[in-house]
């Protein structure tokens, strides 16, 4: 189907199902129950999960296939975001032009950065990309304030020109839309104690993510994808086989930069504002972590990694002491206090600690990331028979 083989079609269908059913899957706990704290089925987080999924999928095309570790991809996300918000300020609140322009600008910027950075490889390449991203961040935060809004960022305002849109009614604030369908439109479905939110913005982002994911499968399975893996494996042989590695790596770099721009444009479409912090080096580091955590070079790994980190950031950081008190309320007082004292450093304001520990555990015990973890579990269930079946669904020959 869609020019994919059976196995890849399977993966695509699984991801499509997960994306479309996310409002159910992410809200497994009834409202009001103690576990409802772990529900993630609200629009903003669902949107972020798929958008950062796109970011990581794109990063994986560069890092997973060619092995070039860019430490500056957040800059492309930021450039895409700024391009998108300016389209919304100047042209229209419709998200389509914003997203197209964000991909375009990120593509151009990544072409420039890639063209320069790809003159070097290894850590030298990483530092070059890092340097570009840090310069972008520093300038966006300070001297470029007239263009970027600096510290306070940019938001669409009532009195922006927006030449394609009519003037807003007084008191209306500009809202991002897709030909009139507003991003925060939607409805809720209440089933017993469960409430499921279906949000237009999320589904738009999810469809874009599925297209992006489908394209990434196509790239992985294409001769071009094979060339990229060959670059990672042995550049010398590439050169002596009459292949010019520079345009291959540059193309991969630009494609992943465009994915980042797409993610940036979507972020703006879903949440109409940009701040320079999204270009800071830690944001670039985050996408590296997502990709490696999920499983670099695998198709589905980056999506899993992105989901995992964003979930941690948004859910675990909101657990405060009174939530813990409620969880452990059934315990006798003394034990309750001990439990709270034990758990408290790891949640709420300590969520960074949990994240750091998890990185370490995953890298130490699951070098192939979460995908490898899944494979090990699958192997345990399938028993011995599966042990020589190395072509696990989500694995690619890139491993």
């Amino acid at each position, binding site marked *: 189907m869609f*020019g*994919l*083989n059976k196995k890849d079609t399977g993966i695509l269908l699984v991801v499509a199902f997960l994306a479309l059913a996310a409002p159910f899957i992410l809200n497994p706990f009834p409202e009001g129950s103690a576990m409802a704290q772990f529900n993630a089925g609200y629009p903003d987080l669902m949107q972020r999960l798929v958008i950062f999924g796109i970011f990581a999928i794109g990063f994986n095309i560069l890092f997973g296939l060619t092995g070039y570790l860019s430490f500056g991809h957040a800059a492309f996300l930021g450039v895409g975001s700024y391009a998108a918000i300016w389209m919304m300020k100047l042209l229209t609140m419709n998200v389509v032009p914003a997203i197209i322009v964000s991909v375009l600008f990120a593509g151009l910027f990544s072409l420039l950065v890639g063209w320069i950075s790809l003159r070097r490889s290894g850590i030298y390449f990483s530092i070059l990309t890092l340097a570009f991203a840090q310069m972008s961040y520093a300038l966006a935060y300070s001297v470029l304030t007239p263009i970027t809004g600096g510290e306070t960022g940019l938001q669409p305002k009532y009195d922006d020109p927006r030449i394609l849109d009519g003037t807003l009614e007084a008191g209306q604030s500009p809202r991002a839309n897709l030909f009139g369908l507003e991003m925060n439109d939607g409805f809720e479905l209440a089933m017993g104690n469960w409430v499921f939110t279906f949000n237009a913005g999320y589904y738009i982002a999810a469809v874009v993510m599925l297209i992006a994911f489908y*394209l990434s499968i*196509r*790239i992985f*399975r*294409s*001769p*071009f*994808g*094979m*060339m990229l*893996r*060959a670059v*990672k*494996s*042995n550049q*010398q*042989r*590439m*050169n*002596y*086989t*009459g*292949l*010019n*590695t520079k*345009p*291959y790596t540059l*193309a991969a770099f630009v*494609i992943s930069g465009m994915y980042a721009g797409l993610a940036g444009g979507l972020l703006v479409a879903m949440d109409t504002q940009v701040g320079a912090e999204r270009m800071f080096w830690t944001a670039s580091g985050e996408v590296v972590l997502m990709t490696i955590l999920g499983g670099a070079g695998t198709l589905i790994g980056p999506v899993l990694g992105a989901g995992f980190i964003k979930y941690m950031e948004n859910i675990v950081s909101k657990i405060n002491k009174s939530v813990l008190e409620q969880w452990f309320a059934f315990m006798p007082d003394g034990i309750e206090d001990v439990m709270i004292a034990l758990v408290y450093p790891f949640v709420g304001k300590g969520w960074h600690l949990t994240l750091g520990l998890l990185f370490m555990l995953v890298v130490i015990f699951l070098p192939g990331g979460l995908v490898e973890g899944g494979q090990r579990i699958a192997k345990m269930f399938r028993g011995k028979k599966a042990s020589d079946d190395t072509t696990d669904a989500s694995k690619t*020959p*890139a*491993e």
Partner: protein
Amino acid sequence: MAILEVKNVGKRFGGLQALGDVNLNIAENSCHAIIGPNGAGKSTLLNCLVGKLTPDTGSVMFDGQSVLGRKPYEINQMGISRVFQTPEIFGDLNVMENMMIPCFAKRDGAFRMHALESIGQERDIIAKAEEMLVDMKLIDKREMQASSMSRGDKRRLEIAMCLAQDPRLLLLDEPTAGMARADTNNTIDLLKQIKEERDITIAIIEHDMHVVFSLSDRITVLAQGTPLVEDTPDKIKGHPKVREAYLGEIQEAA
């Protein structure tokens, strides 16, 4: 007619004159060996031919065109393939993929953005790659990861990858270095077969005189960066100058 003409090539590294004034013609469809003691400049010369190094002086013409100033991949696209001392293959890829890559390079040139096509649909490439694997007796290992093969198989694969591009000139840099006797003999047989079956010129750098004398039509002896003699294998064996510079080694090896 010479397919490769090397004229007055010289190369210095700092204070070291690696190549003095090298003149060398390699005739089309011949097998030409370049021998010489360690440090004679064999590898430097080879690197000058494939674009890894640029000579300070002189010219290198391949089939009437200069190779100087071109990048390795451009020179390869002109029809020169190189086999390395330690097999350079795509270790992370499987054997079939290793084989397909030169086929693509031959068909599509140095770069093509075939990002949305499926490998599975490239039937002509698959057919050609499979044919090469059958020829090289590697077809049973097509799904094997290349880095996990034996050294001899890696060498076969590398040669096969070079041949898949139908090069006019094949450069071999000590193809049997570090090989066991049996593997060496297999490689000699393979190269002999290639020489007979294909329209191809072979240039070989080799230490192992057994290999040199089994394969080559002409031999150039390089010493201290300059060609000492160039002649047929028989004559080289008895040449006094060669004996002087190189004697012990020839006799022991032969």
